[in-house]
Protein backbone atom coordinates (compact mmCIF):
# COMPACT_ATOMS: atom_id res chain seq x y z
CA UNK A 1 0.00 0.00 0.00
CA UNK A 2 1.23 3.47 -0.81
CA UNK A 3 2.08 5.74 2.09
CA UNK A 4 -0.45 8.38 0.99
CA UNK A 5 -3.29 5.90 0.91
CA UNK A 6 -2.46 4.72 4.42
CA UNK A 7 -2.62 8.32 5.60
CA UNK A 8 -5.92 8.92 3.84
CA UNK A 9 -7.42 5.73 5.26
CA UNK A 10 -6.35 6.78 8.76
CA UNK A 11 -7.88 10.20 8.19
CA UNK A 12 -11.14 8.62 7.00
CA UNK A 13 -11.33 6.41 10.08
CA UNK A 14 -10.63 9.39 12.35
CA UNK A 15 -13.45 11.47 10.85
CA UNK A 16 -15.92 8.58 11.04
CA UNK A 17 -15.01 7.77 14.63
CA UNK A 18 -15.30 11.39 15.78
CA UNK A 19 -18.75 11.78 14.18
CA UNK A 20 -19.84 8.39 15.54
CA UNK A 21 -18.77 9.46 19.03
CA UNK A 22 -20.68 12.73 18.68
CA UNK A 23 -23.79 10.76 17.69
CA UNK A 24 -23.62 8.10 20.38
CA UNK A 25 -22.05 9.88 23.35
CA UNK A 26 -25.30 11.62 24.38
CA UNK A 27 -27.20 8.32 24.15
CA UNK A 28 -24.46 6.47 26.07
CA UNK A 29 -24.50 9.04 28.87
CA UNK A 30 -28.26 8.64 29.30
CA UNK A 31 -28.01 4.84 29.28
CA UNK A 32 -25.24 4.89 31.92
CA UNK A 33 -27.10 7.35 34.14
CA UNK A 34 -30.32 5.33 33.86
CA UNK A 35 -28.70 2.90 36.30
CA UNK A 36 -27.69 5.57 38.77
CA UNK A 37 -29.24 7.36 41.69
CA UNK A 38 -27.74 10.68 40.54
CA UNK A 39 -30.04 13.69 40.81
CA UNK A 40 -29.01 14.95 37.39
CA UNK A 41 -27.22 13.49 34.39
CA UNK A 42 -23.50 14.14 34.79
CA UNK A 43 -23.76 14.68 38.53
CA UNK A 44 -22.26 12.45 41.21
CA UNK A 45 -23.05 8.92 39.99
CA UNK A 46 -24.19 7.69 43.40
CA UNK A 47 -25.25 4.05 43.63
CA UNK A 48 -25.76 1.54 40.89
CA UNK A 49 -29.51 0.96 41.03
CA UNK A 50 -32.58 0.00 39.03
CA UNK A 51 -34.77 2.39 40.99
CA UNK A 52 -35.40 4.63 37.95
CA UNK A 53 -36.90 1.65 36.14
CA UNK A 54 -39.31 0.92 38.96
CA UNK A 55 -40.12 4.65 39.20
CA UNK A 56 -40.89 4.58 35.48
CA UNK A 57 -43.70 2.13 36.08
CA UNK A 58 -45.12 4.28 38.87
CA UNK A 59 -45.22 7.47 36.79
CA UNK A 60 -48.84 7.42 35.60
CA UNK A 61 -48.43 10.49 33.36
CA UNK A 62 -45.42 9.05 31.56
CA UNK A 63 -47.05 5.62 31.18
CA UNK A 64 -50.11 7.33 29.80
CA UNK A 65 -47.97 9.28 27.32
CA UNK A 66 -46.28 6.04 26.21
CA UNK A 67 -49.63 4.33 25.81
CA UNK A 68 -51.01 7.26 23.79
CA UNK A 69 -47.91 7.34 21.58
CA UNK A 70 -48.22 3.63 20.76
CA UNK A 71 -51.99 3.74 20.30
CA UNK A 72 -51.93 6.78 18.00
CA UNK A 73 -48.93 5.32 16.15
CA UNK A 74 -50.44 1.87 15.57
CA UNK A 75 -53.97 2.93 14.63
CA UNK A 76 -52.87 5.81 12.40
CA UNK A 77 -50.29 3.71 10.55
CA UNK A 78 -52.79 0.88 9.94
CA UNK A 79 -55.23 3.46 8.55
CA UNK A 80 -52.48 5.16 6.54
CA UNK A 81 -51.41 1.82 5.06
CA UNK A 82 -54.97 1.01 3.95
CA UNK A 83 -55.64 4.49 2.65
CA UNK A 84 -52.23 4.81 0.99
CA UNK A 85 -52.32 1.40 -0.70
CA UNK A 86 -55.81 1.86 -2.13
CA UNK A 87 -54.83 5.38 -3.22
CA UNK A 88 -51.66 4.08 -4.92
CA UNK A 89 -53.71 1.48 -6.82
CA UNK A 90 -56.24 4.10 -7.86
CA UNK A 91 -53.54 6.57 -8.92
CA UNK A 92 -51.74 3.83 -10.86
CA UNK A 93 -54.75 3.34 -13.12
CA UNK A 94 -55.48 7.05 -13.59
CA UNK A 95 -54.91 8.91 -16.82
CA UNK A 96 -51.82 11.08 -16.89
CA UNK A 97 -53.51 14.40 -16.20
CA UNK A 98 -55.54 13.36 -13.18
CA UNK A 99 -52.57 11.38 -11.89
CA UNK A 100 -50.43 14.53 -11.96
CA UNK A 101 -53.05 16.46 -9.97
CA UNK A 102 -53.42 13.77 -7.31
CA UNK A 103 -49.64 13.32 -7.06
CA UNK A 104 -49.22 17.05 -6.55
CA UNK A 105 -51.89 17.17 -3.85
CA UNK A 106 -50.23 14.28 -2.02
CA UNK A 107 -47.01 16.32 -1.95
CA UNK A 108 -48.63 19.22 -0.06
CA UNK A 109 -48.11 17.90 3.47
CA UNK A 110 -44.67 16.54 2.57
CA UNK A 111 -43.23 19.86 1.38
CA UNK A 112 -45.24 22.13 3.65
CA UNK A 113 -43.65 23.13 6.92
CA UNK A 114 -45.12 21.19 9.84
CA UNK A 115 -46.29 24.17 11.85
CA UNK A 116 -48.55 25.30 8.98
CA UNK A 117 -49.97 21.79 8.57
CA UNK A 118 -50.57 21.68 12.33
CA UNK A 119 -52.29 25.07 12.23
CA UNK A 120 -54.42 23.78 9.37
CA UNK A 121 -55.72 20.92 11.53
CA UNK A 122 -56.26 23.38 14.38
CA UNK A 123 -58.19 25.83 12.18
CA UNK A 124 -60.29 23.03 10.74
CA UNK A 125 -61.36 21.88 14.19
CA UNK A 126 -62.20 25.43 15.29
CA UNK A 127 -64.18 25.89 12.09
CA UNK A 128 -66.13 22.64 12.56
CA UNK A 129 -66.70 23.18 16.28
CA UNK A 130 -67.28 26.93 16.58
CA UNK A 131 -68.45 28.11 13.17
CA UNK A 132 -70.45 25.08 12.06
CA UNK A 133 -71.40 24.22 15.68
CA UNK A 134 -70.79 20.51 15.10
CA UNK A 135 -70.46 18.31 18.22
CA UNK A 136 -66.74 17.63 17.70
CA UNK A 137 -63.63 18.55 19.65
CA UNK A 138 -59.89 17.90 19.88
CA UNK A 139 -59.49 14.30 20.97
CA UNK A 140 -57.41 11.19 20.62
CA UNK A 141 -59.51 10.38 17.57
CA UNK A 142 -58.65 13.72 15.96
CA UNK A 143 -54.93 13.17 16.63
CA UNK A 144 -55.22 9.74 14.99
CA UNK A 145 -56.84 11.35 11.93
CA UNK A 146 -54.13 14.03 11.78
CA UNK A 147 -51.33 11.45 12.00
CA UNK A 148 -53.03 9.33 9.35
CA UNK A 149 -53.28 12.31 7.01
CA UNK A 150 -49.60 13.22 7.33
CA UNK A 151 -48.26 9.68 6.92
CA UNK A 152 -50.50 8.44 4.08
CA UNK A 153 -48.50 10.26 1.33
CA UNK A 154 -45.37 8.39 2.48
CA UNK A 155 -47.21 5.06 2.15
CA UNK A 156 -48.21 6.07 -1.40
CA UNK A 157 -44.56 6.92 -2.14
CA UNK A 158 -43.53 3.45 -0.92
CA UNK A 159 -46.25 1.42 -2.65
CA UNK A 160 -46.38 3.23 -6.02
CA UNK A 161 -42.92 2.17 -7.29
CA UNK A 162 -43.74 -1.48 -6.50
CA UNK A 163 -47.02 -1.20 -8.44
CA UNK A 164 -45.11 0.00 -11.48
CA UNK A 165 -42.89 -3.08 -11.35
CA UNK A 166 -45.81 -5.55 -11.27
CA UNK A 167 -46.47 -7.64 -14.33
CA UNK A 168 -49.88 -6.45 -15.63
CA UNK A 169 -50.36 -9.75 -17.49
CA UNK A 170 -50.86 -11.62 -14.20
CA UNK A 171 -53.90 -9.52 -13.34
CA UNK A 172 -55.27 -9.87 -16.87
CA UNK A 173 -54.72 -13.61 -16.82
CA UNK A 174 -56.62 -13.86 -13.57
CA UNK A 175 -59.55 -11.93 -15.04
CA UNK A 176 -59.41 -13.89 -18.29
CA UNK A 177 -59.72 -17.05 -16.23
CA UNK A 178 -62.97 -15.70 -14.83
CA UNK A 179 -62.06 -14.07 -11.54
CA UNK A 180 -63.87 -10.82 -10.87
CA UNK A 181 -61.70 -7.66 -10.95
CA UNK A 182 -62.10 -7.31 -7.18
CA UNK A 183 -61.07 -10.90 -6.56
CA UNK A 184 -58.09 -10.61 -8.92
CA UNK A 185 -57.00 -7.50 -7.10
CA UNK A 186 -57.14 -9.17 -3.70
CA UNK A 187 -55.70 -12.56 -4.63
CA UNK A 188 -53.21 -11.54 -7.32
CA UNK A 189 -52.15 -7.96 -6.75
CA UNK A 190 -52.26 -7.50 -2.97
CA UNK A 191 -49.90 -10.39 -2.13
CA UNK A 192 -47.32 -8.87 -4.46
CA UNK A 193 -47.69 -5.53 -2.68
CA UNK A 194 -47.35 -7.00 0.82
CA UNK A 195 -43.65 -6.12 1.16
CA UNK A 196 -44.15 -2.52 0.11
CA UNK A 197 -47.18 -2.24 2.40
CA UNK A 198 -45.11 -3.43 5.37
CA UNK A 199 -42.39 -0.87 4.56
CA UNK A 200 -45.06 1.81 4.24
CA UNK A 201 -46.57 0.79 7.58
CA UNK A 202 -43.15 0.92 9.27
CA UNK A 203 -42.48 4.36 7.80
CA UNK A 204 -45.89 5.66 8.90
CA UNK A 205 -45.38 4.25 12.39
CA UNK A 206 -41.96 5.92 12.75
CA UNK A 207 -43.32 9.23 11.49
CA UNK A 208 -46.13 9.10 14.01
CA UNK A 209 -43.84 8.19 16.94
CA UNK A 210 -41.50 11.03 16.03
CA UNK A 211 -44.15 13.68 15.57
CA UNK A 212 -44.14 16.60 17.94
CA UNK A 213 -45.54 19.74 16.29
CA UNK A 214 -48.88 18.39 15.05
CA UNK A 215 -49.60 16.56 18.31
CA UNK A 216 -48.53 19.51 20.46
CA UNK A 217 -50.65 22.10 18.66
CA UNK A 218 -53.74 19.91 18.48
CA UNK A 219 -53.65 18.45 21.97
CA UNK A 220 -52.71 21.13 24.47
CA UNK A 221 -56.25 22.34 24.89
CA UNK A 222 -57.38 18.85 25.95
CA UNK A 223 -54.21 17.63 27.66
CA UNK A 224 -53.50 14.44 25.73
CA UNK A 225 -49.77 13.78 25.95
CA UNK A 226 -47.40 11.67 23.90
CA UNK A 227 -43.76 10.92 24.73
CA UNK A 228 -42.64 13.88 22.59
CA UNK A 229 -44.97 16.42 24.21
CA UNK A 230 -44.28 14.98 27.68
CA UNK A 231 -40.50 15.37 27.32
CA UNK A 232 -40.92 18.85 25.79
CA UNK A 233 -43.14 20.10 28.60
CA UNK A 234 -40.95 18.61 31.34
CA UNK A 235 -37.67 19.77 29.78
CA UNK A 236 -38.85 23.35 30.08
CA UNK A 237 -39.26 22.95 33.83
CA UNK A 238 -37.73 20.00 35.60
CA UNK A 239 -37.40 16.68 33.90
CA UNK A 240 -38.07 13.62 36.09
CA UNK A 241 -35.18 11.18 36.26
CA UNK A 242 -37.18 8.15 35.14
CA UNK A 243 -37.11 9.59 31.61
CA UNK A 244 -33.55 8.18 31.47
CA UNK A 245 -34.94 4.68 32.02
CA UNK A 246 -37.57 5.17 29.30
CA UNK A 247 -34.92 6.52 26.90
CA UNK A 248 -32.69 3.51 27.56
CA UNK A 249 -35.55 1.10 26.85
CA UNK A 250 -36.44 2.91 23.61
CA UNK A 251 -32.80 3.13 22.42
CA UNK A 252 -32.37 -0.60 23.03
CA UNK A 253 -35.61 -1.61 21.32
CA UNK A 254 -34.82 0.53 18.24
CA UNK A 255 -31.30 -0.88 18.01
CA UNK A 256 -32.45 -4.52 18.33
CA UNK A 257 -35.32 -4.11 15.84
CA UNK A 258 -33.08 -2.44 13.25
CA UNK A 259 -30.23 -4.93 13.57
CA UNK A 260 -32.62 -7.91 13.28
CA UNK A 261 -34.41 -6.27 10.35
CA UNK A 262 -31.14 -5.72 8.49
CA UNK A 263 -29.84 -9.23 9.17
CA UNK A 264 -33.09 -10.69 7.81
CA UNK A 265 -32.95 -8.36 4.82
CA UNK A 266 -29.35 -9.27 4.02
CA UNK A 267 -30.16 -12.98 4.29
CA UNK A 268 -33.08 -12.60 1.90
CA UNK A 269 -30.93 -10.63 -0.55
CA UNK A 270 -28.31 -13.39 -0.42
CA UNK A 271 -30.92 -16.10 -1.01
CA UNK A 272 -32.28 -14.17 -3.96
CA UNK A 273 -28.85 -13.77 -5.47
CA UNK A 274 -28.33 -17.53 -5.13
CA UNK A 275 -31.46 -18.34 -7.15
Amino acid at each position, binding site marked *: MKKSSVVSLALKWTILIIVMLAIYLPLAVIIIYSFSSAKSVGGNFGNLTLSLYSKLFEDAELLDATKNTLLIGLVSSVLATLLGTTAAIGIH*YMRRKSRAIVDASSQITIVN*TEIVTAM*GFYSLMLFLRDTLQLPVNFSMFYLIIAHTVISTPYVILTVSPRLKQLNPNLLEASMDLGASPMRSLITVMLPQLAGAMISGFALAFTLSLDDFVITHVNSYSVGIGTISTYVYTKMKHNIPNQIRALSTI*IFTVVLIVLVIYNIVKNKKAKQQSLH
Partner: protein
Amino acid sequence: MRKKVKTFRPTAFAFPYLTVTIVFVIVPLLLILVYAFRGADGSFTLNHFKDVFGKGYFSKIIDTVGIAAVSTVICLLIAYPVAFILASSPFNKMAIFALLFIIPMWINFMLRIFALNSLLGIIGIKEGYMAAVIGMVYDFFPYMLLPIYTVLLNMDKSYLEASKDLGANSFKTFTKITLPLSLPGVISGISMMFMPIFSSYAITDTMGGAETSVIGANIATLFDGNADNYGLGSALSFVLLLIVLVVVFLSTSLSGRSAKVKKVGKVS
Protein backbone atom coordinates in the same frame (compact mmCIF):
# COMPACT_ATOMS: atom_id res chain seq x y z
CA MET B 1 -71.35 -15.32 -23.42
CA ARG B 2 -70.18 -13.41 -20.40
CA LYS B 3 -69.06 -9.85 -20.95
CA LYS B 4 -65.33 -9.47 -20.58
CA VAL B 5 -63.86 -6.59 -18.66
CA LYS B 6 -61.44 -5.18 -21.17
CA THR B 7 -59.97 -2.15 -19.54
CA PHE B 8 -59.79 -2.49 -15.79
CA ARG B 9 -59.48 0.99 -14.26
CA PRO B 10 -60.11 0.92 -10.53
CA THR B 11 -59.49 4.66 -10.17
CA ALA B 12 -62.28 4.74 -7.61
CA PHE B 13 -59.78 3.22 -5.17
CA ALA B 14 -58.20 6.63 -4.81
CA PHE B 15 -61.46 8.32 -3.80
CA PRO B 16 -61.28 7.70 -0.03
CA TYR B 17 -57.81 9.19 0.00
CA LEU B 18 -58.88 12.11 -2.19
CA THR B 19 -61.79 12.86 0.14
CA VAL B 20 -59.46 12.82 3.15
CA THR B 21 -56.98 15.10 1.35
CA ILE B 22 -59.65 17.61 0.40
CA VAL B 23 -61.21 17.73 3.88
CA PHE B 24 -58.03 17.62 5.99
CA VAL B 25 -55.39 19.25 3.75
CA ILE B 26 -56.98 21.53 1.14
CA VAL B 27 -59.84 22.92 3.26
CA PRO B 28 -57.51 23.78 6.21
CA LEU B 29 -55.18 25.68 3.85
CA LEU B 30 -58.14 27.59 2.47
CA LEU B 31 -59.27 28.36 6.03
CA ILE B 32 -55.82 29.78 6.83
CA LEU B 33 -56.05 31.87 3.68
CA VAL B 34 -59.51 33.19 4.60
CA TYR B 35 -58.60 33.97 8.23
CA ALA B 36 -55.41 35.73 7.15
CA PHE B 37 -57.42 38.29 5.15
CA ARG B 38 -60.46 38.50 7.42
CA GLY B 39 -61.03 41.17 10.03
CA ALA B 40 -62.92 40.73 13.32
CA ASP B 41 -66.13 41.97 11.68
CA GLY B 42 -65.78 39.51 8.82
CA SER B 43 -64.69 42.00 6.18
CA PHE B 44 -61.60 41.87 4.00
CA THR B 45 -58.53 43.38 5.64
CA LEU B 46 -54.76 43.57 5.28
CA ASN B 47 -54.27 44.53 8.93
CA HIS B 48 -52.92 41.13 9.92
CA PHE B 49 -50.15 41.51 7.37
CA LYS B 50 -49.44 45.02 8.68
CA ASP B 51 -49.01 43.40 12.10
CA VAL B 52 -46.65 40.78 10.66
CA PHE B 53 -44.36 43.61 9.58
CA GLY B 54 -45.17 46.07 12.36
CA LYS B 55 -45.04 43.90 15.48
CA GLY B 56 -41.57 42.53 14.95
CA TYR B 57 -42.63 39.19 13.52
CA PHE B 58 -40.84 39.86 10.27
CA SER B 59 -37.50 40.14 12.03
CA LYS B 60 -38.36 36.82 13.74
CA ILE B 61 -38.76 35.28 10.29
CA ILE B 62 -35.39 36.71 9.23
CA ASP B 63 -33.83 35.32 12.44
CA THR B 64 -35.35 31.93 11.65
CA VAL B 65 -33.94 32.01 8.12
CA GLY B 66 -30.59 32.86 9.75
CA ILE B 67 -30.51 29.98 12.25
CA ALA B 68 -31.86 27.59 9.59
CA ALA B 69 -29.11 28.62 7.16
CA VAL B 70 -26.33 28.41 9.76
CA SER B 71 -27.46 24.98 11.02
CA THR B 72 -28.02 23.60 7.53
CA VAL B 73 -24.59 24.71 6.30
CA ILE B 74 -22.81 23.26 9.35
CA CYS B 75 -24.75 20.01 9.03
CA LEU B 76 -23.91 19.79 5.32
CA LEU B 77 -20.22 20.44 6.00
CA ILE B 78 -20.16 17.51 8.43
CA ALA B 79 -22.51 15.16 6.56
CA TYR B 80 -20.91 15.49 3.13
CA PRO B 81 -17.45 14.21 4.09
CA VAL B 82 -19.01 11.41 6.16
CA ALA B 83 -21.25 10.40 3.24
CA PHE B 84 -18.27 10.61 0.88
CA ILE B 85 -16.13 8.38 3.09
CA LEU B 86 -18.95 5.89 3.72
CA ALA B 87 -19.58 5.61 -0.03
CA SER B 88 -15.90 5.03 -0.83
CA SER B 89 -13.94 1.82 -0.48
CA PRO B 90 -13.48 -0.01 1.86
CA PHE B 91 -16.49 1.40 3.76
CA ASN B 92 -18.97 0.95 0.90
CA LYS B 93 -18.89 -2.80 1.53
CA MET B 94 -19.98 -2.40 5.15
CA ALA B 95 -23.69 -1.59 4.92
CA ILE B 96 -24.21 -2.13 8.65
CA PHE B 97 -21.51 0.45 9.36
CA ALA B 98 -23.38 3.13 7.40
CA LEU B 99 -26.57 2.09 9.17
CA LEU B 100 -24.99 3.07 12.50
CA PHE B 101 -24.89 6.69 11.35
CA ILE B 102 -28.55 6.67 10.37
CA ILE B 103 -30.05 4.70 13.29
CA PRO B 104 -30.77 7.83 15.40
CA MET B 105 -33.44 8.69 12.81
CA TRP B 106 -35.64 6.03 14.40
CA ILE B 107 -35.24 7.23 17.98
CA ASN B 108 -37.85 9.70 19.17
CA PHE B 109 -36.35 13.11 18.41
CA MET B 110 -37.40 14.69 21.70
CA LEU B 111 -35.56 11.96 23.60
CA ARG B 112 -32.48 12.58 21.45
CA ILE B 113 -32.70 16.29 22.24
CA PHE B 114 -32.99 15.43 25.93
CA ALA B 115 -29.88 13.22 25.68
CA LEU B 116 -27.90 15.85 23.76
CA ASN B 117 -28.96 18.60 26.15
CA SER B 118 -27.78 16.48 29.09
CA LEU B 119 -24.39 15.96 27.44
CA LEU B 120 -24.02 19.66 26.63
CA GLY B 121 -24.78 20.36 30.27
CA ILE B 122 -21.97 18.02 31.33
CA ILE B 123 -19.38 19.60 29.02
CA GLY B 124 -20.50 23.06 30.03
CA ILE B 125 -22.24 24.45 26.95
CA LYS B 126 -25.04 26.63 28.27
CA GLU B 127 -28.48 27.11 26.73
CA GLY B 128 -28.33 29.67 23.94
CA TYR B 129 -27.81 30.18 20.25
CA MET B 130 -24.88 27.78 19.98
CA ALA B 131 -26.63 25.01 21.90
CA ALA B 132 -29.71 25.42 19.67
CA VAL B 133 -27.59 25.19 16.51
CA ILE B 134 -25.87 22.06 17.86
CA GLY B 135 -29.35 20.68 18.59
CA MET B 136 -30.50 21.30 15.01
CA VAL B 137 -27.36 19.77 13.51
CA TYR B 138 -27.62 16.72 15.78
CA ASP B 139 -31.32 16.27 15.12
CA PHE B 140 -31.24 16.58 11.33
CA PHE B 141 -27.88 14.89 10.68
CA PRO B 142 -29.27 11.51 9.52
CA TYR B 143 -31.73 13.27 7.20
CA MET B 144 -28.88 15.22 5.61
CA LEU B 145 -26.56 12.21 5.45
CA LEU B 146 -28.94 9.65 3.94
CA PRO B 147 -29.75 11.33 0.57
CA ILE B 148 -26.13 12.38 -0.04
CA TYR B 149 -24.85 8.91 0.88
CA THR B 150 -27.42 7.21 -1.37
CA VAL B 151 -26.52 9.38 -4.37
CA LEU B 152 -22.76 8.90 -3.87
CA LEU B 153 -23.13 5.15 -3.38
CA ASN B 154 -25.18 4.68 -6.55
CA MET B 155 -23.00 6.97 -8.65
CA ASP B 156 -21.59 5.45 -11.82
CA LYS B 157 -17.95 4.85 -10.85
CA SER B 158 -16.81 4.69 -14.49
CA TYR B 159 -16.95 8.51 -14.62
CA LEU B 160 -14.31 8.64 -11.89
CA GLU B 161 -12.09 6.16 -13.73
CA ALA B 162 -12.50 8.06 -16.98
CA SER B 163 -11.55 11.30 -15.25
CA LYS B 164 -8.44 9.70 -13.78
CA ASP B 165 -7.51 8.05 -17.08
CA LEU B 166 -7.72 11.43 -18.76
CA GLY B 167 -5.21 12.77 -16.28
CA ALA B 168 -7.25 14.70 -13.72
CA ASN B 169 -5.99 14.60 -10.14
CA SER B 170 -8.34 13.53 -7.35
CA PHE B 171 -9.19 17.13 -6.40
CA LYS B 172 -10.19 17.97 -9.95
CA THR B 173 -12.12 14.70 -10.26
CA PHE B 174 -14.03 15.64 -7.11
CA THR B 175 -14.94 19.18 -8.19
CA LYS B 176 -15.70 18.28 -11.81
CA ILE B 177 -17.39 14.88 -11.42
CA THR B 178 -18.33 13.82 -7.89
CA LEU B 179 -19.65 17.13 -6.58
CA PRO B 180 -21.93 17.97 -9.56
CA LEU B 181 -23.26 14.40 -9.68
CA SER B 182 -24.02 14.41 -5.96
CA LEU B 183 -25.87 17.74 -6.12
CA PRO B 184 -29.38 16.18 -6.20
CA GLY B 185 -28.58 14.41 -2.90
CA VAL B 186 -27.26 17.65 -1.40
CA ILE B 187 -30.37 19.56 -2.47
CA SER B 188 -32.68 16.91 -1.07
CA GLY B 189 -30.69 16.89 2.19
CA ILE B 190 -30.92 20.67 2.46
CA SER B 191 -34.65 20.67 1.78
CA MET B 192 -35.17 18.00 4.45
CA MET B 193 -33.57 20.32 6.98
CA PHE B 194 -34.00 23.98 6.03
CA MET B 195 -37.79 24.33 6.08
CA PRO B 196 -38.43 21.86 8.96
CA ILE B 197 -36.24 24.11 11.16
CA PHE B 198 -38.95 26.79 10.92
CA SER B 199 -41.17 24.43 12.92
CA SER B 200 -38.47 23.16 15.29
CA TYR B 201 -39.50 25.26 18.25
CA ALA B 202 -39.16 22.15 20.41
CA ILE B 203 -35.39 22.52 20.02
CA THR B 204 -35.10 26.29 20.52
CA ASP B 205 -37.54 26.29 23.45
CA THR B 206 -35.59 23.63 25.31
CA MET B 207 -32.00 24.41 24.27
CA GLY B 208 -31.98 27.96 22.95
CA GLY B 209 -32.48 29.87 26.17
CA ALA B 210 -34.60 33.01 26.23
CA GLU B 211 -33.06 34.83 23.28
CA THR B 212 -33.17 32.12 20.60
CA SER B 213 -36.40 31.11 18.93
CA VAL B 214 -37.89 30.14 15.58
CA ILE B 215 -41.04 31.55 14.00
CA GLY B 216 -42.92 28.28 14.60
CA ALA B 217 -43.03 29.10 18.32
CA ASN B 218 -44.76 32.43 17.63
CA ILE B 219 -47.37 30.81 15.43
CA ALA B 220 -48.05 28.10 18.00
CA THR B 221 -48.59 30.65 20.79
CA LEU B 222 -50.69 32.96 18.61
CA PHE B 223 -53.16 30.15 18.01
CA ASP B 224 -53.16 29.13 21.64
CA GLY B 225 -56.90 29.40 22.24
CA ASN B 226 -56.93 33.16 21.70
CA ALA B 227 -59.32 34.03 18.90
CA ASP B 228 -58.05 37.63 18.65
CA ASN B 229 -54.65 36.52 17.45
CA TYR B 230 -56.13 34.04 15.09
CA GLY B 231 -55.90 36.28 12.03
CA LEU B 232 -52.31 37.23 12.78
CA GLY B 233 -51.35 33.58 13.21
CA SER B 234 -53.00 32.76 9.88
CA ALA B 235 -51.21 35.65 8.18
CA LEU B 236 -47.87 34.38 9.52
CA SER B 237 -48.72 30.86 8.32
CA PHE B 238 -49.53 32.36 4.94
CA VAL B 239 -46.12 34.08 4.79
CA LEU B 240 -44.46 30.75 5.68
CA LEU B 241 -46.44 29.07 2.88
CA LEU B 242 -45.01 31.60 0.44
CA ILE B 243 -41.48 30.89 1.71
CA VAL B 244 -42.12 27.15 1.28
CA LEU B 245 -43.22 27.76 -2.32
CA VAL B 246 -40.07 29.80 -3.05
CA VAL B 247 -37.82 27.12 -1.50
CA VAL B 248 -39.59 24.32 -3.40
CA PHE B 249 -39.30 26.29 -6.65
CA LEU B 250 -35.60 26.97 -6.06
CA SER B 251 -34.76 23.37 -5.18
CA THR B 252 -36.69 21.85 -8.10
CA SER B 253 -35.13 24.26 -10.60
CA LEU B 254 -31.69 23.60 -9.10
CA SER B 255 -32.04 19.82 -9.25
CA GLY B 256 -33.59 20.19 -12.70
CA ARG B 257 -30.48 22.03 -13.82
CA SER B 258 -28.17 19.41 -12.33
CA ALA B 259 -30.21 16.70 -14.09
CA LYS B 260 -29.58 18.59 -17.34
CA VAL B 261 -25.86 18.70 -16.59
CA LYS B 262 -26.01 14.94 -16.12
CA LYS B 263 -27.72 14.43 -19.46
CA VAL B 264 -25.31 16.69 -21.31
CA GLY B 265 -22.43 14.89 -19.62
CA LYS B 266 -23.74 11.57 -20.89
CA VAL B 267 -24.00 12.80 -24.45
CA SER B 268 -20.57 14.34 -24.73
